[in-house]
């Protein structure tokens, strides 16, 4: 196996590992947390916000 082939193989393996990790972590978070607690978006018309120290948007 040439050096080029080895380097390309390493790149593919790393890509595969990263892709698997990203997808599995994303699915794991979805399974372990309630969906409504992950989305940081209370509706101001439903729940009028209380003025805080931080100028800006939402609680972010």
């Amino acid at each position, binding site marked *: 196996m*040439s*050096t*080029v082939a080895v*380097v*390309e193989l390493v*790149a*593919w393996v*790393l*890509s595969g590992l*990263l*892709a698997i*990790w*990203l*997808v599995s*972590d*994303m699915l*794991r*978070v979805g399974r*372990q*947390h*309630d*969906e*409504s*607690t*992950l*989305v*940081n*978006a*209370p*509706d*101001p*018309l*439903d*729940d*009028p*916000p*209380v*003025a*805080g120290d*931080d*100028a*800006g*948007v*939402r*609680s*972010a």
Partner: protein
Amino acid sequence: MSATEDRPTTAPTTAPTTAAPAAGPPTTERPALRRVLAPMHIWALGVGIVLVGEFMGWNFAVEKGGMYGALVACWVVGLLYTCIVMINSEVTSAIPAAGGQYAQAKHTVGPLMAFNVGLYLTLAYTMLEAANANVLSSLLTALSGLLGSEQELSPYPFAVLAILALAFLNYRGVFASLTLNLVITGFAFATILVLFIGLRAWSPTAELDLAGLAGDATNALPYGWVGVIAAFQFGMWFYLGIEGTAQAAEECRSAPRSVPLGSLAGIMTLIIAASLTWFVCAGVLPWHYLGTAITPLFDAALVSGQDVLVVLLLLGTLCATLASANGCINDASRAWFSMGRDRYLPEWFGAVHPRYHTPFRAIVFLVPVAIAFALLPVVLDEPTLLSTVITFSILSGLLMYSFMGPSFMRFRKLWPLGTIRRAYTLPLHPAPAIALLALSAVVFFATFLGYGIALLSILAFYLLASIWFVVRRYKFVRRGAQFTADLPRPQGY
């Protein structure tokens, strides 16, 4: 993940929501984007996305308008982007929200405009990321050639690896990803300075031959002023993406301070880098060659015959490309996330990772899109498809710029000076907004000359997307999502 991972980093919402479980605590805790960024990160984000345009792409302006045509384009388009940065600085200091111009359009114009701007942003940055990954794999092939390899590297694994590795970094946290951008962008900028010094460019007659290569009408302005206008579309390469600094506003420790400081320092850096780049390349490379070169700064280093400069400029080009792709992932995901959070898109995309505090689903979702656009030109063996991808990115940006001037005028009308706190106030209003509108029209005309069909196709695409939004999506939009900034009721409402 342990339960303690969530506790120290979650922020309580201002009020419990109806979506919270009935049996839950009275105040639900939701993960929020983490406020960790400083002005230097904003600089790194803005300059990082753009600087690759100094290393490649801008020089096509020379082919259209000659040496001086490219210089005029560099400075006139620089004025356009200065207007954009100043307008962004004022609006973002008042509306510091992820999504940047999307959030601004939401507050000043309305949902349809906001949807389109969000789409422009996502597509512009995703396409640019794809182009960067594609270029990166080509650069690695060139590097392996320089290292003596006789076999050509396949572009597939490295383009895919670059996108996935940067997405992984962005997924794990904004601080690390933008700190990396700071380092590699700083290095890339330094290589331009080193090239300037290495060629002793302060003495144009020593290593450079500026008078000979750019000193008469045949190479300075070969197609007259029409050529200068035509060069404007490629002049955008010097600065395209600097407006992305607004995307990080929600993650700044102090957005009203960081965004104006980082953005204004960024545009100054870019104007200096663009002028130095033009000066060095115009004094070393003949205009016919420069107008079609793939990596003009690297070629200038090759002409110098100094090995140190060659290695440095190759590394600089690689770093600039990586920094651009990294910044694009950051910005595209924030735009997509913001639209999801407001239900302009499925709310699923509006989730924040409870541990890393990043818009993780938006980041992962855009990975296959970027990979597809990066590999398509290679898979189909259509190298020109890469320029189409880049053109789509440029035109999406241009569409957004053309709306920024009128949108800013409306912002000033809704919230006049003195009614809200602004950390930065745009001077000479409305001159910059009018200048932005006029310059955008000129660049549109220039783009129409070069890419008329692409421009019309993209306009048709956004028209269809708008129809879809109005007919199918608008009913899902969060009722109170229009005015989420902590601003008083606008004038006239």
